């Protein structure tokens, strides 16, 4: 009844081999192999493909054909610089806007006495739950230069071409409103943990509240601003849906959209697309590394542990106007788009040019709903999305839990490397993962290309950072002594996992599962290169119908998708409330 372990003191080459062949060694080897296929191999295949002259053919790689031609072609003629300029400019505008909106709302909700601040705090992150694709549809309907509802309304009072969503500013605006919640979450956490004595000390030293804000408060929350800003910037560079919908009509070309066009339009230029993809990867990886440096260097711990809620700033006469602005903004970016989608979904005829035509109630009917629900493509892709999401959740929860447990709770050799590999996809755009999967599986002789499995695997790879982090978060909260006491009571690892760890981590595991369900149900870019006519997922169908001009159907589908996601989110909140009382 004893287990042999190699002593770390005397590790010769032979001992290493013994360790590698032990059950623990084999377990880690299997885990590493799995993650290699899931995450590392597709990236390697993509990089390799970017140096090849021809599309991939089953395992037959002509190594002598390695060439820089794809890069030369991509980088020559200024095309790449133009793409880069547009992509970076829009991402910068979006990031600046997201920082301004997210930080102001966080400050308003947490540090002021604005009426309804608790409600404001919880609804400020609502825009995050609007899928970018759906947001893009809605703002196209609302603010396209000629037929946008806002422009029609303004034209009726004599203002011509007031807003143009197909511009850098327009796209930056849509970026900003849907990514501001990320900034809000970071800054709100920093403000909530803020030790008010820092400010009080400054005031006692004679600083005015204005000076105190600039010299004490702002510097102390600057790490939150900087790291959330970098995160949003990376996400915006990676984004496909909004640029694809709103960029092309205004002749604004983004890197991600260009990659999709190169692969999808005839003649396909997969090799050049891969080169462009690798260049994009270089940018995102650099930015993510930068973000980690920033986070690592400048974490000002201001948590005092006394649980003091920072003093609120009395706004005086500005209370109500600011409440109006805060709540009005949320309504504007969440409700208005859905109102527009609902309007389009209910309207028979999409040709309207005046306010009068818009208000014509005779045009309203439920026909489009019936049409969408009976459409075989819509139905099939809904079921496909459901299957993919459930598959991702089923495999993902087990895989991510295993990884999180090994990293957080064991001393197995190689667990740090495991952690690093699962974080990698943070820096890999979904589109690039998809392209890597295309390279890998089209050339491997296993028949998963063209099935739903390849989409599930790509999602598992794409969402591993979020999934592992969510479960790790709940494991970290469990005092290790709760496990150790079980071991001393005579329970083995399996029994301890079943009776102690999983029940205690369950709320976290469940929210991770729902998060996965939400992410995989709405994902578009990752599946873009991996579907066939029988494995089209819901977001792809929406995108496809939009390109073909079936705006009615898309509006109905967007509403259905949002409804499904909203139910999932509510479910998640309910479970978290019910199951967390004993986690401190």
């Amino acid at each position, binding site marked *: 009844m004893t287990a042999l*372990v190699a002593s770390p003191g005397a590790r010769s080459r032979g001992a290493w081999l013994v360790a590698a062949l032990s059950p623990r060694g084999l377990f880690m080897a299997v885990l590493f192999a799995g993650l290699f296929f899931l995450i590392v191999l597709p990236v390697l295949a993509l990089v390799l493909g970017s140096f090849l002259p021809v599309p991939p053919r089953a395992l037959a790689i002509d190594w002598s054909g390695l060439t820089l031609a794809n890069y030369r072609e991509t980088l020559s003629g200024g095309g790449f610089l133009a793409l880069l300029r547009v992509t970076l400019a829009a991402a910068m505008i979006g990031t600046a806007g997201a920082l301004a909106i997210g930080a102001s709302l966080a400050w308003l909700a947490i540090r002021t006495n604005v009426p309804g601040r608790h409600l404001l705090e919880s609804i400020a992150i609502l825009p995050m739950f609007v899928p970018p694709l759906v947001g893009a549809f809605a703002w196209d309907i609302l603010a396209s230069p000629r037929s946008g509802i806002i422009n029609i309304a303004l034209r009726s009072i004599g203002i011509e071409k007031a807003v143009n969503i197909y511009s850098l500013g327009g796209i930056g605006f849509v970026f900003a409103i849907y990514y501001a919640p990320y900034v809000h979450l970071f800054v709100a956490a920093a403000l909530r943990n803020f030790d008010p004595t820092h400010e009080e000390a400054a005031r006692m030293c004679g600083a005015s509240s204005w000076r105190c804000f600039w010299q004490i408060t702002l510097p102390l929350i600057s790490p939150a601003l900087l790291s959330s800003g970098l995160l949003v910037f990376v996400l915006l560079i990676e984004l496909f849906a909004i640029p694809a919908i709103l960029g092309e009509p205004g002749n604004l070309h983004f890197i991600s959209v260009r990659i999709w066009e190169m692969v999808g339009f005839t003649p396909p230029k997969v090799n050049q697309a891969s080169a462009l993809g690798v260049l994009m990867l270089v940018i995102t990886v650099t930015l993510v590394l930068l973000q980690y440096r920033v986070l690592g260097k400048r974490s000002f711990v201001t948590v005092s542990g006394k649980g003091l809620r920072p003093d609120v700033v009395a706004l005086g006469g500005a209370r109500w106007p600011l409440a109006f602005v805060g709540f009005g903004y949320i309504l504007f970016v969440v409700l208005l788009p859905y109102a527009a989608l609902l309007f389009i979904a209910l309207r028979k005829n999409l040709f309207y040019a005046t306010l009068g035509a818009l208000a014509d109630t005779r045009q309203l009917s439920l026909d489009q709903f019936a049409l969408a629900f009976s459409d075989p493509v819509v139905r099939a892709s809904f079921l496909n999305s459901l299957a993919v999401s459930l598959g991702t959740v089923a495999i993902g929860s087990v895989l991510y839990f295993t990884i999180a447990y090994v990293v957080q709770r064991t001393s197995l050799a190689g667990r740090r490397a495991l952690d690093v590999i699962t974080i990698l996809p943070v820096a890999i755009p979904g589109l690039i993962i998809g392209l890597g999967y295309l390279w890998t599986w089209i050339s491997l002789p296993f028949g998963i290309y063209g099935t739903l499995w390849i989409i599930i695997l790509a999602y598992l790879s794409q969402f591993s950072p979020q999934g592992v982090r969510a479960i790790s978060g709940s494991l970290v909260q469990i005092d290790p002594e709760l496990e150790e*006491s079980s071991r*001393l009571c005579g329970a083995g690892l399996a029994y301890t996992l079943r009776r102690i760890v999983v029940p205690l981590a369950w709320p976290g595991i469940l929210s991770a599962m729902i998060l996965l369900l939400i992410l995989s149900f709405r994902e578009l870019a990752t599946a873009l290169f991996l579907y066939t006519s029988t494995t089209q997922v819901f977001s792809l169908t929406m995108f496809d119908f939009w390109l073909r001009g079936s705006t009615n159907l898309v509006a109905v589908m967007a509403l259905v998708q949002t409804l499904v996601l909203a139910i999932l989110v509510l479910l998640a909140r309910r479970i978290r409330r019910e199951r967390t009382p004993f986690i401190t």
Partner: protein
Amino acid sequence: MAVACQAFESQAPKCQVEALTKRYGTRAVVENVSFEIAEGEFVVVLGPSGCGKSTTLRLVAGLAAADGGRVLLGGKAVSDAASGLFVRPERRDIGMVFQSYAIWPHMDVFENVAYPLRVRKRGNAEIKQRVENMLALVGLAGEARRSAAQLSGGQMQRVALARALVFDPTLLLFDEPLSNLDLKLRERLRLELKELQRRTGLTSIYVTHDQAEAVELADRIIVMESGRVVQVGAPHELYRRPLSRFVAQFISSANIFPGRVLARISDDCASVRTETGRELAATHDGSVATGDLVDVVIHPEDCLLGERAPEAPDSHHARIVSRRYQGTSTRYTVDWAGAPLEVAALGSEAPLAQDSPVVLTVPRERARIIGRSAIAASAP
């Protein structure tokens, strides 16, 4: 065979630790630690935080693997770094009470205590019987169905104890179990714990940094400093005959004066001049020689004030500098040859006033000479 084996086991110490070493990176947190614990003994491992006492306990429990040395339970090795032998904690049959109590919040009191029996696949009737007996023993009869999340600190401590005892372990480990409780409760539970251990006769190792707890609970105390054992002995031995300045300081609030041996008066007595210029006679263990640099340890409660003539042996002129009345005793700081000395006088009277001259007596059999930097592990 079985009989012979049992006879052998009753001969062997319940727990033996031999040359145990644990490193984190290059830093040794436990270094060459050895001790033995006899059947039914209550041993306290005492030391400041970071001295390696909790790590030693975890090595015995099997919650960490040693880099060197052996652990034997009932004469059988359960971990041996040299051969790579390591018995997992769940196979060691040890009960443990954790600092955080580690009461599982998703189970009620009964299920927490029943857990070790469920792991061992005992029948429901037996489980019910034993858990109820155990809850009665720790004073929680009738609380079986309380949710673990609603328990107070003291109740959690009792549940943890019941859970550690319920499966009749061969050894009981305590990792600072009282440190999260307030003073009054701590004192009461200390009494109960000692009483319970006397009744069950369980061999126990108890880790703490609180010397009052150690002195009260222990049959024997193992004092640790920087990963090493510095002294082992019964509480009164440590108090009366500390082997080092560290032990004297840690175990009591003694006055400690550096000085030099002037002359040996007898085999166990010598005269010493302190660095501040006092001369006094004090007891030693026979190993000191004239001219040695030593420390003199004087417990405040061993000094007498004003009872003898200044000409009597061991008596000196002194002056009261300050007086702190504490109810059952009074602490004085006295000026003796130009340097302060702490003196405690028992009783609720405090007759000596500040600045009054007084005769101070330091009986030579109570003042103790210890060698400077004498880190000598005493034989267990």
